[in-house]
């Protein structure tokens, strides 16, 4: 593989000089004409791949943060993170299974929140392949960011995991990985985008009960003074039993559960988003568990969505002991000035 250096790459401004550039006779001109503020030039100048990883053991009903040193940008230049990946694995064999709904995460970059509190891991991204998310004691989730996030040198995106105590008393190992590209110190994009997730998790429903639950004005909200561009709305249903939590598909609850949890939504101006009670997996497409908006809708500063869940009682005998918990999130990004 051949990497052509551009301006500001390590080696150009005090960074590490790759071996092939230490030869003084090598007088090839780097791509000095590239302007890092120019979109076309930035497109030409792709950076180098970078991957950061950290993990922490989280005990039930408590939170734990990953060591920030492992996730800190190690380079003299900034990096653009394009995807954030989560992994859950059992810390002991006592754990039968745990879904992405049982473990939550709050993401912050310094003082900048990237999530509205602790959000269940599986509400960060859409489903790529539900059967491959895993089950049993190992699960993975990926949040492919709609716009890469700019991480300056020395900064870090710090995840703080929270174990909701479901199921039981078993600790889990939570891991996070960032994938992106590293650039030289001179790299300075004209626009900076910050992703954001705001979510709401319902109370736990007994599968036999008929009840309702509604989010508040502070859940699915744009708390910033800039508009949020909504990329998607993600929804999931968790199946809870004594010893495990699973996606309702994995729990073989799916065909029945799909009509048990219905939803309607409106925004802060009263506009209907989901007009009448509709099964969650028709609002958020059942295969992807998400409603892909592709940034065609914005949420103004201070505006919010309200999600009103209605849990229907099944009209037939069900597995006793099953419980359900639904969650919904808006996955968005915003543009900030430098």
């Amino acid at each position, binding site marked *: 593989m051949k990497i052509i250096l551009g301006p500001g790459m390590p080696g150009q401004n005090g960074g590490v000089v790759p071996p092939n550039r230490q030869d003084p006779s090598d007088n090839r001109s780097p791509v000095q004409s590239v302007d890092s503020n120019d979109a076309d030039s930035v497109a030409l100048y792709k950076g180098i791949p970078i991957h950061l990883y950290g993990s922490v053991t989280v005990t039930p009903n408590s939170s734990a943060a990953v060591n920030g040193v492992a996730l800190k940008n190690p380079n003299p230049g900034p990096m653009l993170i394009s995807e954030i990946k989560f992994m859950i694995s059992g810390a002991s064999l006592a754990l039968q299974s745990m879904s992405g709904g049982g473990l939550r995460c709050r993401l912050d970059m310094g003082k900048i929140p990237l999530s509205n509190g602790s959000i269940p891991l599986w509400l960060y991204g859409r489903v790529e392949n539900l059967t491959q998310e895993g089950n049993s004691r190992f699960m993975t989730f990926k949040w492919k960011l709609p716009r890469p996030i700019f991480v300056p040198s020395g900064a870090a995106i710090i995840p703080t995991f929270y174990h909701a105590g479901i199921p039981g008393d078993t600790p889990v190992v939570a891991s996070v990985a960032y994938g992106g590209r590293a650039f030289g110190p001179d790299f300075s994009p004209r626009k900076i985008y910050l992703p954001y997730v705001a979510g709401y998790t319902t109370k736990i429903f007994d599968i036999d009960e008929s009840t309702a639950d509604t989010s508040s004005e502070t859940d699915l909200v744009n708390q910033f003074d800039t508009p949020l561009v909504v990329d998607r709305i993600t929804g999931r249903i968790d199946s809870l039993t004594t010893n495990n939590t699973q996606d309702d598909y994995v729990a073989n609850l799916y065909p*029945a559960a799909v009509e048990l949890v219905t939803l309607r939504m409106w925004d802060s101006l009263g506009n209907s988003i989901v*007009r009448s009670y509709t099964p969650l997996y028709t609002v958020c497409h059942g295969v992807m568990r998400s409603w892909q908006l592709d940034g065609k809708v914005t949420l103004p500063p201070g505006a919010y969505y309200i999600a009103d869940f209605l849990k229907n009682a099944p009209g037939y005998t069900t597995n006793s002991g099953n419980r359900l918990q639904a969650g919904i999130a808006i996955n968005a990004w915003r543009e900030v000035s430098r």
Partner: protein
Amino acid sequence: MSKIKLPPAVSPICLSTSVSLTAGNTAVGNMADLTSPLRSPMIIDEISFMVKHTETNSATVIDYPGGSIRVKLRTSRFDLTNNYVPIWNFGPVIDETMDSASGWASPQNSVTTSGKDDSLMHFLWKLPKPLFLRPGDMIFPEFQRQSDGVAGTSKVYITYHGRLMPIDCPIPPEVWIPYVSAWIPTLVNGQTYYVSNKDHFFNKLQVPLHVQRFHPAHSAHQLRPVTRAVRPANVRVGCSASGAVVCQNHRFQGLSGLRRFCPQFLCLQYQQARVDREDGHRPQ
């Protein structure tokens, strides 16, 4: 196509309704559920279907095929389909294991224990170009279930995902209209060769059709377990204007790269988008 800059959307919008179908029946969706609130204009980005098939006798439960449930879509002014089109012919497969009921959501493992078993399917049609709906307009669905010999009831959800536009949003002089036409040959025992006629893939409109994709799909209704064996169905496609499209007999699945399980009868469909003039000229 003249362009007009539309204002930003007010909010996303999701409209959904459901019908229950038994074999050989037709049903229409509830218009009240599918109309824009406050008669605001809308832009529809995608149409999705979910089918929940409930079988009361688990001994005969099948993986219910999307080919048996068909829908005819139209707005107040234009048809969006040439006739009833199988719901799995609208869009490409997203996740093969989950798009159809084949091998998924196994009824035997369903939560139900009182003699009812469920299977589930999802299908998504992401429109090639967003469909602008005037104030008060809607997409009107008519469903049909074939006499497939399968007991039980199929509950079909149709959902429109889109954006709610401001009430004072200007009406574009021309809009893109998605269009689907399908051909589903009626199988005859012993016959191995079927040819569509001029009415099946015929541009009956006064404006050109822009073909987006061919979407072949096999279907079958057969008892579980579903086999993944693919029968050697081949297809040739010709065009009245340009001659051969698929010159020689080509493996059916290879036409689009899609693989469908349980092949038994053949269905070929294509999907198009066209520019439609709204200057009073009504091509239909």
